[in-house]
């Protein structure tokens, strides 16, 4: 408890989550990251807690830890997510349940618990990760896009319900980024997606951080309920 603002990044073990966590540490935040598994990286100013965001009891324990260690929470980045790229006729029900559990239930639980802590100081910034695949309505991503559409709905409605507590809720919709999430997606599919963007290149983690930095700025208190798509979807 040294007076630094505290940020939570879910799914921070790898990929974009790790990048965002590292950047937030560099920006002076005390950062708490979480994932189901232990992180294989560490940094001064970074604390990793194992938690599955789809499990309510684990989420509650995560926030009890944050409260006990830091006594505040300023920023929550709902980055943890799983993807399902498949024809709708070939998606098992179990896949649907898992994607919805992590991407929707996880965002809801983490946002709810974040807001409960944030309201104590009447300040908070919740940022959810969506995807440009939502406005592009890509074939082969029905379940993933349905889950991220739900995330966008939560973003809009929670922004209204939490505004009175000084908490903003926004979402960032990146284009495809080179991470494990799209490792199994055929190259042609990615190229096709990129060709539909205004900016014809893959999205980079720094593109996401640039918008995140803007949304969590204390001066961004009048910006809420927005989804910012990257790459010009």
């Amino acid at each position, binding site marked *: *408890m040294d007076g630094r603002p505290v940020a939570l990044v879910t799914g921070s073990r790898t990929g974009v989550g790790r990048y965002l966590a590292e950047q937030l540490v560099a920006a002076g935040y005390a950062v708490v990251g979480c994932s189901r598994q232990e992180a294989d990286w560490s940094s001064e100013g970074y604390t990793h807690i194992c938690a599955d965001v789809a499990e309510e009891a684990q989420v509650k324990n995560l926030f009890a830890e944050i409260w006990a260690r830091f006594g505040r929470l300023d920023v929550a980045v709902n980055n943890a997510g799983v993807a399902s790229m498949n024809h709708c006729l070939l998606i098992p029900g179990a896949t649907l349940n898992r994607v919805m559990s992590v991407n929707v239930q996880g965002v809801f639980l983490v946002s709810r618990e974040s807001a409960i802590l944030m309201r104590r100081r009447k300040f908070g910034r919740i940022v959810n990760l969506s995807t440009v695949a939502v406005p592009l309505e890509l074939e082969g991503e029905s379940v993933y896009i349905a889950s991220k559409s739900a995330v966008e709905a939560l973003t809009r409605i929670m922004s209204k319900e939490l505004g009175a507590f000084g908490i903003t809720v926004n979402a960032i919709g990146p284009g495809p980024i080179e991470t494990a999430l799209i490792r199994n997606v055929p190259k042609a599919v990615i190229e096709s997606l990129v060709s539909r963007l205004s900016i014809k290149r893959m999205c980079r983690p720094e593109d996401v951080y640039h918008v995140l930095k803007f949304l969590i700025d204390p001066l961004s208190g009048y910006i809420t309920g927005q989804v910012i798509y990257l790459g010009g979807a």
Partner: protein
Amino acid sequence: MPRTRTEGLEVDRAVVVSLICQTVREIASQAPDIMVEETCLFGSKGFLDSLGLVSVVLDVEQKVNDLYGLSISLADDRSVSQQRSPFRSVSSFADYILMLSAERQRG
């Protein structure tokens, strides 16, 4: 800031009622000067709006958990129901907390 928990204390109804009344007064400027167990908080006879109700419920939850070392959650689907809300009066609110506390302490 986090408080030291006094685990093992038995949840006392009079203390819970006092916590509820104190919290309501802190949040709702329109709270009556004298509050008793029968005081209606929410619904057609109550004075809390939904935002005030959320604030009261979360603050009382925090205070009860801090005081008794519990981790009860007062979230309930019936929260804003006019007839069935456990938060409709000081009395029903206290009953609800004691019920959840007993469940939690039984494990």
